């Protein structure tokens, strides 16, 4: 082994240890803590716990199915067909991603809840005495999940389709395969990594989802709400066991999905051109497609519009009317006039920026080591550690982090970070690792090593080659991963609620406490601002 190789292995070992300390260690500590016979017995004895765990699993599976059923056809539609307004509609359709988690759920309540617009309108239209439906239970949760999560399938599938090599499809046709066989035997296998990635993301998001079951669940319990109920009732040991049970489900799912993911070598080989979009020729069909597209986009944007409308309603003026009787900017004025309401916005911005920068730096280090300079056996632990935070619901990870850093034991690598401003951004970094890590690793996979070798043979040092060749080539991946991470940290609620302090209280906590004291309009105004910032950042991130 040369000195340089030794250096690389040392660097890889350091990175692996850092990741293990950040990602794995807190969870292991919680697991050890949960190994109390009593609490485990109590968990096993109560039928309610098993029902909640099962509900979490099937709700997550159903969310994946629904999100795939909406997102995949849309992606094919927008990637393969050409019709008027395709580009604009194509980006509008991704907008559910910018609806902040908690206020988004409240917007749904005002829109589709039993005294929301849609229900009131249907009630008036049909002259019913009672509201036509109630937004509650598993159906309501699935509606919210499908709405907010199909975007992952849509974006991932579109990205996969854009990289598809037309020559492969032509080859299949030339060999006599019909459109269905081509789709089944060629297109879908080529899309497999994208689909598996989206399925993983949706499953984990649904498993960790808290706001929707909390607001719409009623008597229907899932594990995330069960953990909160146990904590509220003072049964801390039970809450820990529940936490570990949920984490175990997530880790099993991660292992299963990663197994079906396959390798992304197929992508790297594709050097052809993506298939050309088919023009819809008949004017009637074109018009119909465009109209259907706009109608669909309008339905998708209804929650955003509701949020905007609610943010314009002065307090207490909207009761039994279908539409609010008066609107004004008073909520925005209140928000901007009081400096202690503005602080959370600034806090969220700096924490999101700092944590995104750190997550990108770690991802770059991992990418450079794993994809370029290391033997394969290092690849698996580092990549697994980077993907693992996806498998840990936000509440679980936050509780683990708070417990780990509440004692001063430097020898066990534990310091008191609870109550300091750094713990929350640290949690954001770890939560964002899968987003930046995946983007950067995939980015490295698509760069031809020959380019870097060419730079080296032209006399560029390693640093110069990295700065002048690799980084510019990685820029789209960095922008995409970074903007997603930034938006996720900006809107985060489940991690923040456990770890915030006065000095770093983020915007989602301010929204929550506005809701707590009945200032729904102010909460919505915060939500609108969050939405605009998120949309702007994602827009910048999507620019190639």
């Amino acid at each position, binding site marked *: 082994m040369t000195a340089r190789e030794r250096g690389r292995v040392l660097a890889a070992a350091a990175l692996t240890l850092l990741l293990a300390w950040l990602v794995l260690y807190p969870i292991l500590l919680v697991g050890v803590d949960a190994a109390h016979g009593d609490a485990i017995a109590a968990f096993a004895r109560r039928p309610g716990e098993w029902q909640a765990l099962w509900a979490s699993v099937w709700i997550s599976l159903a969310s994946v199915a629904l999100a795939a059923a909406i997102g995949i056809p849309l992606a094919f539609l927008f990637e393969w067909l050409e019709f008027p307004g395709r580009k604009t509609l194509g980006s509008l359709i991704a907008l559910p991603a910018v609806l902040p988690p908690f206020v988004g759920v409240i917007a749904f309540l005002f829109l589709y809840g039993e*005294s929301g617009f849609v229900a009131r309108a249907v009630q008036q239209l049909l002259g019913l005495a009672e509201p036509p439906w109630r937004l509650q239970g598993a159906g309501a949760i699935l509606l919210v999940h499908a709405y907010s999560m199909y975007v992952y399938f849509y974006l991932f599938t579109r990205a996969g389709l854009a990289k598809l090599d037309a020559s492969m499809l032509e080859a299949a046709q030339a060999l006599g395969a019909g459109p269905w066989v081509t789709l089944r035997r060629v297109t879908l296998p080529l899309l497999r990594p994208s689909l598996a990635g989206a399925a993983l993301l949706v499953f984990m998001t649904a498993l960790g989802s808290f706001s929707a079951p909390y607001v719409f669940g009623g008597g229907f319990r899932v594990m995330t709400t069960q953990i909160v109920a146990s904590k509220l*009732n003072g049964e801390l040991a039970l809450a820990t066991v529940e936490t570990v049970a949920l984490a175990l489900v997530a880790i099993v799912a991660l292992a299963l999905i990663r197994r079906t993911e396959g390798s992304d070598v197929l992508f790297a080989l594709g050097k052809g051109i993506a298939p050309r979009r088919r023009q819809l020729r008949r004017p009637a069909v074109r018009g119909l497609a465009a109209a259907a597209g706009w109608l669909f986009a309008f339905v998708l944007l209804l929650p955003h519009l509701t949020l905007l409308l609610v943010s314009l309603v002065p307090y207490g003026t909207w009761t039994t009317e279908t539409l609010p009787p008066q609107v004004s900017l008073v909520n925005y004025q209140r928000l901007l006039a009081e400096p202690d309401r503005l602080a959370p916005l*600034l806090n969220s911005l700096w924490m999101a920026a700092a944590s995104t*920068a750190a997550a990108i730096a770690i991802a770059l280090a991992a990418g450079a080591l794993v994809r370029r300079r290391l033997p394969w056996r290092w690849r698996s632990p580092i990549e697994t550690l980077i993907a693992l935070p996806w498998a840990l619901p936000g509440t679980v990870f936050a509780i683990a982090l708070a417990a780990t850093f509440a*004692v001063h034991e430097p020898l066990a690598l534990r310091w008191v970070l609870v*109550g300091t401003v750094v713990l929350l951004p640290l949690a954001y970094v770890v939560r964002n690792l899968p987003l930046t890590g995946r983007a950067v690793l995939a980015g490295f996979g698509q760069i031809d090593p020959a380019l870097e070798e060419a730079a080296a043979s032209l006399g560029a040092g390693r640093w110069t080659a990295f700065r002048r060749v690799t980084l510019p080539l990685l820029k789209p991946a960095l922008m995409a991963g970074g903007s997603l991470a930034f938006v996720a940290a900006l809107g985060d609620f489940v991690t923040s609620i456990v770890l915030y302090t006065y000095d770093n209280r983020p915007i989602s906590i301010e929204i929550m406490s506005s809701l707590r004291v009945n200032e729904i309009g102010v909460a919505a105004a915060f939500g609108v601002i969050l939405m605009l910032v998120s949309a702007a950042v994602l827009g910048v991130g999507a620019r190639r």
Partner: protein
Amino acid sequence: MRGRSPTFGAALLVLAAACGSPGRTPLVIYSPHGRDLLSLFERRFEQLHPDVDVRWLDMGSQEVYDRLRSERANPQADVWFGGPATIFARAAQDSLLEAFRPSWAGAIDAHGRGPGDRYFAVYETPAVIVYAEQALRPEDAPQDWDDLLAPRWRGKVLIRDPLASGTMRAVWGMIIERGMKQTGDTAAGFQWLRRLDAQTKEYVLNGPLLDQKIVRQEGLVTVWDLPDILLNRRDGLQLGYVFPKSGTPVIEDAIAVVRGARHGAAARAFVEWVGSVDAQLVAAREVYRLPARRDIPADSLPAWAREVRRRMRPADVDWDLLAGQGGEWMRYWDEHVRGRGAVAR
């Protein structure tokens, strides 16, 4: 990377802005009292103590308890202001509170004084029956707890999720203890709650949503705490309320200095001030809190408070029993009563 440098610059600016702190002593308060009361108290207390910078975080009382527990190694809060004395009692058992006896301690009823001077009641919060004023006349609203079980309210009752609410825990506790007094067993109380569950349309996750749903007439009657209803009426929400005839639980709303508080002197000064006659009257006049002090002359209280004192009948609740057994009862209710009432009937 060119595209990112403005973001970085902005982040640094924001960071710089966030770090700049004035030279005053910060006083961190965890409280469920809400923006109205807290920003009012922030202004008043800072006028009296210009060297103190009051910083409050608004959260549910159960959440305060949770945070104090997880921040034990590095306490962030100096004062815990607000929440039922039963939760304070649990925190005192967990050694999360510092002993401090303010000068007004003697003016508080014995059951509002925590053991070892760990906490003291400052307000009294009665639970009331609430109805949608646009839909019901006052005389048509339920007048007592048992009226809530009348057939005409079937599917019209909304209840705040009782697991997460100190007010609802107190009401549930009162019902169960009432049954125990009559029959010697908790079964009677749970049977009553089962019948209420059959009437209940929905368990609502927080107070504001509950208020909204009543005003929007998704349900017509509920049970909630009086200060919240009075504040909402001031702000124009059409909510009516009734004091239950047979008596209502009156929750002792307490205050305490957090153990290991980093700004102990300021914390003690704040607690001392909140219980002063001045601050008690400010809270009563401006944000509808009923003073816990017994030595405030009735004629200096606002009209609403005199009215409430006259009409309200406190129910006889054994708070120690509730503090000890409440968790068990709530779990039993959650597993065996919630959502089962209609089946049992």
